């Protein structure tokens, strides 16, 4: 399968004495669902920000063979841990249509596509409502709709189960499993990742301590214990 993303020798620190990410190497192939697990402070979210190029890290991040730049952001989408940060328009429809309008689509066309995307995620009836009136689970789905509206080639999802309990988390996993995209999903919710990822990386104290098929990694109790995940 074609490699979409290749990360080699990635290092990042906010302060020199305290590295957040150290010697990170991994690849993501087209159509793959990669899970990144790690305890609090393991560096999962920081890794995603580095992949977007919004945090300057040492090492190489190649997206379709080219170094990640701000222009590459048009091909990558991200769903933030807190959906409030990316849903800021007066209605959900505007929020989902905005990336399309920004990239040159006509308003009517963008709104039609946004409505379709909201429909796919079961939010068509909420199109005219502001994000603030939705539940946290609906807001997460709306953020996913907004991220997917411009048909990105890579989707990054940061802690999608944060603030969600059992049922909405399961619904979100089902939804993510149905999307036809390449995705990297960070979480410390192991059962959630087990439902739809094919491969999992384990991050501990900023290093990758394991990388392999999800059932194998998440079935290794000693490994999960050492990474403070159970």
């Amino acid at each position, binding site marked *: 399968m074609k490699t979409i993303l290749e990360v080699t020798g990635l290092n990042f620190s906010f302060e020199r004495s305290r590295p957040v990410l150290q010697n990170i190497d991994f690849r993501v192939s087209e159509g793959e669902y990669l899970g990144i697990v790690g305890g609090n402070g393991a560096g999962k979210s920081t890794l995603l*920000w580095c992949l*977007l190029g*919004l945090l300057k890290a040492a090492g190489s991040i190649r997206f379709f063979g080219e170094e990640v730049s*701000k*222009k590459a*952001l*048009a091909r*990558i*989408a*991200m769903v*933030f841990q*807190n959906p*409030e*940060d*990316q849903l*800021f*328009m*007066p*209605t959900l429809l*505007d929020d989902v249509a*905005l*990336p399309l*309008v*920004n*990239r*040159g689509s006509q*308003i009517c066309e963008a709104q039609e596509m946004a409505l379709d995307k909201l429909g796919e995620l079961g939010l068509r009836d909420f199109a005219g409502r*502001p994000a603030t009136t939705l539940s946290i689970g609906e807001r997460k789905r709306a953020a996913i709709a*907004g*991220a997917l509206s*411009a048909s990105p080639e890579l989707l990054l999802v940061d802690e999608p189960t944060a603030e969600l309990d059992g049922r909405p988390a399961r619904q979100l996993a089902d939804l993510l499993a149905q999307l036809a995209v390449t995705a990297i999903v960070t979480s410390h919710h192991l059962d959630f990742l087990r439902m739809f990822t094919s491969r999992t990386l384990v991050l501990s104290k900023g290093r990758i301590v394991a990388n392999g098929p999800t059932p194998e990694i998440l079935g290794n109790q000693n490994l999960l214990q050492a990474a403070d995940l159970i």
Partner: protein
Amino acid sequence: MPALLVLSAAVAVAFMRNTGWVTASLPVGLVLNISSRRSISKAMRAMLPVALFVLTLILLQWLYRRPEPLVAAKTLAVFWLTTAAFRWVPWSGLAGAIRPGSRASAFILYLLFVRHFASILVVEAGRLLRARSRAVQKPYGHWAFRSLASALVSLFVRAATRAERFYSALLLKGFVE
């Protein structure tokens, strides 16, 4: 349209140098601000933070023996006018007026961003101050002031973090430099 007029008035007041005009803008701003809200008591409560800010400003000017009453008056008038204008903006219809690449669109998006960020700040400030009021027993004294100062510093840090994320979201939505 009334929102745009009031907003333009606020911008004009910010650049005014004539004491008479700034003084005249105070009662106008106050009346408009009160009329934009549902009740006078709500309007008064909302004015408390800015009133405290202006009082602190006057105190500092007095301490440094550089009284600039015009700055304090402008702060109040601009606050009253802009908050009234923001209440009258037809937000739900605004996004439909966006035309890619036009100057008006840039202005509309700017207004939407300011409104979103202001609402985040208000929510964050509310949470922080509620948490502080639960933790502090006495409304005065060393710990009361120290905790208030820490809460305000923390609010700035949170605001900066949220602003960074918001900026990232804008980049991801296609606002590439």
